[in-house]
């Protein structure tokens, strides 16, 4: 019983204090799970019929497109920044 209570408190504590996220380039990887969710939900309402293989392929394609577009945007912004600021 005590173990269950401890586990409950442990789980609850996980949602009452924020985790540490440093202001580093690695923090950008936190965008990936969100992009995955956006791709999956968008494809879930778009595809005519849900079949595992085709749904997975469509979702991965959308995920890849979003990530690729974000990388291109980052490169363009970086180039503009370098050209303007030096």
């Amino acid at each position, binding site marked *: 019983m005590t173990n269950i209570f401890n586990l409950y408190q442990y789980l609850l504590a*996980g*949602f*009452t*204090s*924020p*985790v*540490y*996220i*440093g*202001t580093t380039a690695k*923090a950008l990887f*936190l965008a990936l*799970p*969100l992009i995955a*969710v*956006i791709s*999956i*939900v*968008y494809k*879930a*309402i778009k595809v005519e*019929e*849900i079949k595992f293989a085709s749904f997975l392929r469509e979702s991965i394609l959308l995920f890849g497109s979003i990530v690729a577009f974000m990388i291109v945007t980052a490169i363009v912004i970086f180039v503009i920044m370098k050209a303007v600021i030096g």
Partner: protein
Amino acid sequence: MREYTAGKFGLRGTAYLFLVGIAAWWIPGAGHWIIGQPKRAAIIFFSIAFAFVLGIWLGSIAVIDAKTPWYWAQMLNSPAVAYLAHLSGSVYHLDSFGKPREIGEIYTSIAGMLNLLCVVNAVYTAHCINIKERNQ
């Protein structure tokens, strides 16, 4: 695919659409489940729940703050978010700052806006099913 229509529920068309919309808002995916699309419903439920839980784990439930504009987007997840706002603000008096809060707010708000997309899609699909039933 078996479709559940207003007629099968014994409801008028508008009441059925209202039921689908409210269910989809209260529990992500429930709207699609009502209209007979359980696979879609499960995908929507687990994806939106994952994004929301990850958001409140990263930034704590303090990211649900009724005083910020983010709250309106977060409320689109489910009305249960209001209870979490009450817990974080009035019961535990929690607060979070900086990057974790920012990322938590983005995750929970985008999860809410994705649920709005699903609510609209569920209601529209239910409307199309109703029209198909009426025409038969």
